[in-house]
């Protein structure tokens, strides 16, 4: 119930005027649990709010601003370390939103730094980062092999003094997943920002967000990822050319179904304007229920559904036999 209230006031801040004190209490807690407190603070800025709500949202906004400064600094550190490679460095997700000054970055919390480099330069990028003070965060032989053989990114690296993580991707989905996005096309279409790092083209950025949400994980933090998609669509939608390119690029990356799913659910939860034909599917109700699986205390609810999506995330990531082998090694270490 309260998650829907959160979605409603993110979508239409004027509805915040009608919230009861109990609804506010739940909404603030859920916003923190979904890592949307900074985004909510940004959306409601300028409105007259109960003093405590104002105070909590001010703190969330300050927190997001400090996080933004850290993220930009970390990006600059990586840029300097990787500059000698002379290859494109495409920054992804939250760091890209703030680097490019996109609406999706306003108030957004940013965790790790995610970058994409050409697969042929992966070894060089790793060597350059290790030389500049990053270290492997998971020094376990199986994990290391697993990442290098099956994943779309290097094993995570962490900087030894700044304690910040970097994920170096060479594509946007695990190699074991069924869709095979065209990584070269992602890089060749990327947009160079002033100062030499790049971001994905508008269509690819939305496709990546949709792939991350619906073709990879178990939808944890999905409300925030879907909010990213809503903000990106609203910012990039300049008419038919945008929707055509979104459809074409989604087809190129074999990600139409993830993108369509993202658009439908964003429309349901955030009233996102969708000006292309997306056919509804009965499974959307399950996804919607999974995205809204939290109560007013911030606790996870709908455990069976969560578990089903957890299984799904593994099946998406790898074929069943490989999955069994992976889980066996994880459980018994052999």
């Amino acid at each position, binding site marked *: 119930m309260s998650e829907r209230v959160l979605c409603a006031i993110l979508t239409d801040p004027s509805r915040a005027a009608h919230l009861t*004190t*109990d609804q*506010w*209490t739940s909404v*603030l*807690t859920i916003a*923190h*649990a979904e890592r949307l407190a900074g985004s909510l603070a940004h959306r409601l800025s300028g409105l007259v709010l*109960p*003093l*405590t*709500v104002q*105070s*909590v949202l*001010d*703190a969330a906004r*300050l*927190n997001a601003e*400090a996080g933004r*400064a850290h993220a930009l600094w970390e990006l600059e550190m990586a840029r300097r370390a990787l500059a000698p490679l002379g290859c494109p460095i495409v920054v992804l997700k939250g760091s890209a939103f703030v680097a490019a000054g996109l609406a999706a970055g306003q108030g957004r919390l940013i965790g790790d730094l995610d970058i994409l480099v050409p697969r042929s330069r992966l070894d060089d990028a790793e060597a350059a980062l290790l030389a500049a003070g990053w270290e492997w965060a998971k020094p376990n032989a199986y994990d290391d092999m697993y990442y290098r053989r099956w994943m779309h990114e290097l094993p995570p690296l962490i900087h030894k003094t700044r304690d910040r993580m970097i994920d170096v991707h060479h594509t946007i989905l695990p190699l074991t997943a069924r869709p095979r996005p065209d990584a070269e096309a992602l890089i060749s279409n990327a947009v160079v920002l002033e100062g030499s790092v790049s971001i994905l083209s508008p269509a690819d950025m939305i496709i990546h967000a949709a792939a991350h949400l619906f073709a990879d994980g178990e939808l944890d933090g999905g409300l925030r990822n879907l909010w990213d998609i809503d903000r990106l669509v609203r910012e990039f939608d300049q008419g038919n050319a945008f929707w055509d390119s979104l459809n074409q690029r989604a087809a190129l990356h074999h990600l139409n179904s993830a993108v369509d799913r993202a658009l439908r659910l964003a429309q349901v939860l955030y009233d996102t304007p969708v000006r292309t034909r997306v056919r509804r599917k009965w499974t959307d109700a399950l996804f919607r229920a999974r995205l809204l699986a939290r109560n007013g*205390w*911030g*606790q996870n609810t709908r455990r069976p559904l969560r578990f089903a999506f957890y299984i799904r995330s593994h099946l998406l990531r790898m074929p069943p036999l490989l999955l069994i082998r992976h889980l066996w090694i994880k459980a018994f270490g052999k």
Partner: protein
Amino acid sequence: MMFATTMRVGPIGFRIGSDWSAPIAGLEALYRDYQKPDDGIPHFTVRLEATRFWRRFIRPSVQIAGDHTLPEALPLPLAQAVLAAEMAMNLQMALGQRHFLLLHASSVERDGKVIILTGESGSGKSTLAALLGEAGWRLLGDEFALIEPATGLAWPFPRPISLKNDSIAVMEAQVGAERFGIRICGTPKGDIRHLIPNVTALKGMDTPAQPALILFPRFGAPRAVRDVQPSEVFIRLTQASTNYVALAEPGYTALTRLVTQTSARAIDYPDTASGLALVEQLWAELA
């Protein structure tokens, strides 16, 4: 959640939910004379949860959670749930507070001026503050001093004082049983018993005051007083602050003002009586 309570400590409102009734009853006893959160909306939500559903009943163990959490918080036995709640409330402040510079310190006020006592666990800052609170001073808090960046004022945060081990008997000798919580034995920090602040502290919890003296107490050493240079005070307070880095420039400005406008002493004292005498003596020299 099945059981819940709310309270306001100084400027901060809390909501605490629990899978069990006993922790809420314990908290409601400790916080019986506190106000409820302003507007009916708490700043922070805290949860005391069973690690698994069946762990509500069998070897019940309390996992803390809330708006702001650390990934590796260890569960505590249900008998220590009130302590778990206190840790969870501290965590909300340490990780989520952005309106005050937070110093891990106790603080007391007299004549509109505040002494901040800071030091590591075992330095005696809680005990000294508890004793001063019964000896004509107003207790502002034993855990966090809240420095408001815009004004430099110290705001009260007078939670029940968490007395540990030997200091429990020291305070039991001074204060009636009605102001104590139950004794919690065998915690990671030994025995703990909470002391409810007196009426002066609770009535005054909305009144901030100007810091005038910073003390670095050390219990158990021969009596000694040492001036502490502002540079050293600054560094020690950055270490005592849970949100100095997160506050960025306002934190730096607030701390610089506090350090340059407040004198500081390191005091060593062999027992609580000489500790109290030292504090009173330094206070008199200040005036």
